[in-house]
C-alpha cells in the first residue's frame, strides 16, 4: 500500500508488504492520520502514521472471506465481504457489534448516510439493503444518564 500526495503526485509512504492482498481502504474522519484496510484473508488492519498499529479480526467463520469494501459511519467501521456479510465493527476495541447475513452473494459496495445514520449495501445479489442505526436505551444506561444530568 502506498500513500500518495494528491497535489504533487509524489509517493509519501510505502507500507510494508503483506502476504494477502489489500482489497479496500478507508480513511478515518475522526482519527487523524489513520487508515483502515480490508484484506483478502478476512482481516481489517489499522494503519497509524504509516505503521501497523492494530489488527482487527473477526474470529467467527470468516477465515476465507475477502473484505471487498470498508466504510466509516458515526464512529463505527462497516465492512462488506465475500461471504455476503455486512459487519459493523466497534473501532475502539475491535468487536463486531452486529453481523448481517442477508445477502446471497458477495457484498461489493456500501454507501452511508451520516445524517440519518443509514447504511446501504449491495453487490452480486443485485439487491440494495438498508440498515439503520436505532437508539435503544437500556435501563441501566438510562439510570446512569439521569445521575450525570442531575
Amino acid at each position, binding site marked *: 500500500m502506498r500513500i500518495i500526495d494528491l497535489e504533487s503526485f509524489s509517493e509519501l509512504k510505502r507500507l510494508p508488504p503483506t502476504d494477502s492482498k489489500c482489497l479496500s481502504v478507508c480513511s478515518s474522519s475522526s482519527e487523524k492520520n489513520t487508515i483502515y484496510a480490508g484484506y483478502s484473508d478476512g482481516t481489517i488492519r489499522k494503519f497509524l502514521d504509516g505503521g501497523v498499529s492494530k489488527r482487527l479480526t473477526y474470529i467467527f467463520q470468516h477465515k476465507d472471506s475477502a473484505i471487498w469494501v470498508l466504510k466509516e459511519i458515526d464512529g463505527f467501521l462497516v465492512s462488506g465481504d465475500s461471504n455476503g456479510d455486512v459487519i459493523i465493527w466497534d473501532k475502539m476495541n475491535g468487536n463486531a457489534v452486529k453481523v448481517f447475513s442477508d445477502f446471497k452473494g458477495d457484498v461489493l459496495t456500501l454507501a452511508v448516510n451520516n445524517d440519518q445514520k443509514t447504511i446501504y449495501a449491495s453487490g452480486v445479489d*443485485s439487491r440494495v439493503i*438498508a*440498515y*439503520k442505526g436505532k437508539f435503544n436505551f437500556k435501563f441501566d444506561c438510562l439510570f446512569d*444518564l439521569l445521575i450525570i444530568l442531575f
Partner: protein
Amino acid sequence: MQLSSKNTHKYPIIGSEESNKIEIGKEWVYSGNTRGQSHDIKALIYLESHQCLISGGVSTDLCIYSLEKYGKLQDSFKLKRSNKKFLHIPPFELKNQVEICTDLAPEDENKKASGWVNEGIMILVLRKTFSIELWMYEQRKQPVFLLEFEK
C-alpha cells in the same frame, strides 16, 4: 487472529472517554430492501442533495432509487401509482437523435410515403441531452437554425 482485550463490553460506560465517541445503546437494524437492477451492482452512491441512491454495475445502466423520509428505501406495497420507485438511465440514447418532421414538408404524398423528400424544405428535429433543436434544411443550401426548446 487477535482481539483487543481492553474492553469487550457492547455498550461503553457513560461518562468514560469512549462514550464520547460511540453512541450509547445504539442498535443496528434491518430497514428494507429493493431490487432495481438485474445484475451485479459494483458501485453505490448516496446523493445527499437529492435524497437518492445511484447504483451502477454489470448491466451498464444507472439506477436511481428515490428514498423516503429518514433515508428509508421505498416500500413497493405502499407505493402510489404516480411515484416511481426507480429511474433507469441507459448508457446510450434509445430514441433517434435526428428526426425528419415530414408534416411541415411540401405536400407530396408519394415523397412523404418514401420517408425522404428529395426536393423542397425539410424540418429536422435534433434531440440533445437538455434541449431540442429545430433546423430547416433545403437541398443544396446550408441548414438554417430555427428554434431551440430547453427541457
